[in-house]
């Protein structure tokens, strides 16, 4: 049975949306590479992108089978905009909600047996995970690019890396012998089409349990 799924991702500075219709046709807003380095504009961009793909596919929200959303890891504010939007869209029409790892979606766009999706975590660190043909080998974690190179050398693995984190830390990663997708490759962008495709295989999660995969505690220290 095929489902009509709306997918969103706001884990990087880019905003991605896609409608994967039950007949297999996809209507996608795929951000350009320049969006990865620009100022995030999720609040201004996300709902127009959602409306655009829904109109293009000729579906109303109530026609959807599920809403899927990239839950990061990634920028906290962007993730909250995406997840708040997805949860509200699902709540309004009682739709199923399916959270998808943004790193898994990024990996799905890397054409290599071993994929290392890297999302910029700021403060000199990257969010990373490792996938072999879609299977998660290393669960999402946060580390410096130097440490990621070290871990791969220790494990004797040679994946292909992509993502805004790969672009940002290109020098360190390449100096460590890592292969990166080309500078102009679209595989650096988290595509909502991949969110939808992964969601087609995923199970529903109660809306209140759909939250960002922050991977970092907030910067705050109890005073007592």
């Amino acid at each position, binding site marked *: 049975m095929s489902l009509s799924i709306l997918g969103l991702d706001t884990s990087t500075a880019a905003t991605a949306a896609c409608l994967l219709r039950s007949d297999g046709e996809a209507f996608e807003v795929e951000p350009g590479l320049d969006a990865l380095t620009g100022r995030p504009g999720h*609040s*201004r*961009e*996300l*709902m*127009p992108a*959602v*409306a655009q793909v829904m109109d293009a596919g000729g579906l109303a*929200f*109530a026609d959807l089978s599920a809403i899927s959303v990239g839950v990061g890891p990634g920028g*906290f*504010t962007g993730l*909250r*905009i995406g*997840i*708040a*939007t*997805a*949860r*509200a*869209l699902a*709540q*309004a*029409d009682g739709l199923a909600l399916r959270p998808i790892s943004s790193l898994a979606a990024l990996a799905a766009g890397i054409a290599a047996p071993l994929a290392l999706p890297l999302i910029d975590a700021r403060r000199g660190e990257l969010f990373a995970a490792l996938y072999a043909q879609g299977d998660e080998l290393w669960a999402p974690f946060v580390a410096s690019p130097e440490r990621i190179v070290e871990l791969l050398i220790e494990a004797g693995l040679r994946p292909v890396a992509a993502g805004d984190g790969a672009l940002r830390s290109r020098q360190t990663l390449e100096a460590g012998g890592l292969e990166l997708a080309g500078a102009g490759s679209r595989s650096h962008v988290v595509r909502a089409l991949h969110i939808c495709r992964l969601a087609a295989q995923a199970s529903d999660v109660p*809306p*209140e349990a759909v*939250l*960002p995969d*922050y991977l970092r505690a*907030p*910067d*705050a*220290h*109890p*005073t*007592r």
Partner: protein
Amino acid sequence: MILGIETSCDDTCAAVVTTAGVLHSNAVASQGLLHSRYGGVVPEIASRRHLELVGAVVADALERAGAGLDDVRAVAVTRGPGLIGALLVGVSTAKALAATRRLPLHAVDHLHGHVTASMLGDEPIEAPYGCLVASGGHTFVARVDHPSGFRTLGETLDDAAGEAFDKGARLLGLGYPGGPALDRLARTGDPEAFDFPRSLPGTGLDFSFSGLKTSLLYRVRDLGDEVARARAADLAASYQRAVVDALVARSLAAIERERLERFAIGGGVAANSELRTRIAEECGRLGVDLWVPPHELCTDNAAMIAGAARFTPALPYPAYLDLDASATLA
């Protein structure tokens, strides 16, 4: 019915209000205890919590109103001012909910909500009127000639009144949020025991509370820990008297200067018992009618946001899809 959503600071709020200003529900999930460990609101923690709570709070507000989204004619949301990460959770939620039904959306100024809170309920205040809004985040006096807006007559130049209470409470070891605790302790103390500075209005109607806070700090230090602890009630009462004096003095100056016949108070500090008593006395003396909304309409809430939306034009679908939140609303 208008569905209101408010997430500008540390309370996750949703409410259902009719276009006539009748309150059907006013749901608030307060994060106060969560932030008390940090001695103040931590924006990242507040934003995370809003996301966890907002769906349930909206569902609760609709359920208590005996309504579903299909009964809602417009959605109203606080666009600012406030903590940007917190605001964005509410704005994203409101836009998405509204878009599923192609409902119009009102982007509401949080301060406009406070100013018009007294227009909700059975006996709404009528413009023109004056208004004092004092809370942990804002302190200002305003004039309302038409409910669609307000004119700020004076505002705090540094701390908000609620901040002055919280900081004072902390200096007296009362924890956070300390406003209510300071209010309780002050009732058993002598408000004349200590002399704290008052900057009374000259020509302007602006407020300043930072000097007062510093003065309490020095007073506690001069007395020494033991004496300060023994006389905490007197310190609290005197300190509170100074804050309330400033609020009352500006309110009266505004009433006189603007020749106002009606006045309202709002914001979390409007729950302070001494402020309520004093401003009621003074308004009574001047023959000015005073509106003091119930506590749940003074502290941050979504009913005042839905209420304020009644007086401002809505953005039709799809004009609001690219709406952004604004920390300053400048």
